[in-house]
């Protein structure tokens, strides 16, 4: 298949969610995973060389064309999206779920020291977290984990791609100043 790169590019243009290599393979049938991977790498390199309006990102286990961050203001004028704007408290709660998953509400509240019910509901409504089921302990608490939408929102390939939080050195440290 000579035009494999073009075919994949056309798929990427139309797809609504990140395309996995497996998905591409199911569509193209003939070429192997390695060939598809090479084509994707080449496409990405081409976009980087061209430095146009978009790039190819690897996210949530797949590949997706997205706009370059530099042009965010222009896109916002076009789409007028609802701002993502997660509060500090919401981000902390989300971080705890992301790093500790699967986890239950009492464990999250233990770390943050405050009630998280409202925040959990909000994160759930925004599809950033999902419910895995209930833990078989007294009270049968709900077990939470993050979603694919979470990976897509925070530009993560998978959960292993989560940034490593900074180790705590001293509290007068400049890096900790940024936490407030």
């Amino acid at each position, binding site marked *: 298949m000579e035009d494999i790169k073009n075919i994949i590019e056309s798929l990427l243009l139309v797809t609504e969610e990140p395309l996995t290599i497996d998905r591409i393979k199911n569509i193209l049938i003939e070429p192997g995973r390695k060939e598809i991977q090479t084509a994707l790498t080449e496409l990405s390199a081409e976009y980087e060389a061209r430095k146009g309006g978009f790039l190819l990102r690897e996210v949530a286990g797949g590949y997706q064309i997205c706009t370059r961050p530099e042009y965010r203001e222009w896109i916002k004028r076009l789409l007028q999206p609802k701002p993502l704007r997660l509060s500090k408290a919401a981000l902390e709660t989300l971080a705890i779920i*992301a790093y500790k998953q699967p986890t239950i509400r009492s464990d999250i509240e233990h770390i943050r020291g405050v009630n998280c019910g409202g925040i959990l509901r909000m994160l759930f409504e925004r599809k950033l977290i999902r419910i895995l089921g209930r833990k078989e302990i007294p009270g049968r608490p709900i077990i939470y984990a993050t979603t694919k939408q979470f990976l897509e929102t925070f530009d993560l390939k998978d959960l292993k791609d989560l940034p490593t939080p900074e180790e705590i050195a001293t509290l007068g440290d400049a890096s900790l100043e940024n936490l407030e």
Partner: protein
Amino acid sequence: MQEDIYKVQIDDIFEGPMDLLVHLIKKHEVDIYDIPIALITKQYLEYIEWMKIMNIDIAGDFIVMASTLTKVKSRMLLPSHDEDDDEDPRLELVKPIEEYLLMKSAAEKLATRILLGEDTFVRNPRPENHLMDHEGEIIKVGLFELIDAFQKILENISPHERVDITADRISVRDKIAQIVDIFETRGSTTFNELFPENAEQSEVIVTFLAILEMVRLSLVRILQNTRTGIIRLFYL
């Protein structure tokens, strides 16, 4: 000390006891592994007093932390008689603070990433947006419609198929996890798809219970197309 309290502004209202504790530790630039417990406890209690004066409802969590601080402080004062038990009482505080700071730092890191819908954009009409387009044709399904549909599925199971007690039976919880996996890849599924034709009666029942539980947890929205009668489940 009095003027310290005066300087406090509205945005200094702490979200929780950990927040307040970390603020105090930071303000005094002390090492979290060597907290001057008397000073921090004193200031913590002063803040709580101040919050009371300002008529801010103090959650029980703040009081719990105050008592922990006081406890640690008193344990620091007591001489240790047991040689083996000379663990620093402040460890009780250090561990949670460390963990909290780690998660705060993680949250900060997440916030600086290239955010979808904020910094970068994709071609992305999400399935739930499509859902709205069909609003006129689709109705929400009530419990009775669901039970009717379930009865049809039960009728289709061959009567010879009996529940095998010895077989590995799947729990409702596992089933929910399975269904969630389907949703994670596809976003929606029809009711009938969840019941394979050759399924055992026990599995069919577990699947149905799983669906009901998922509705209760508001994990799914169940809608029926008025023309085709097909019932679809949408992941929320």
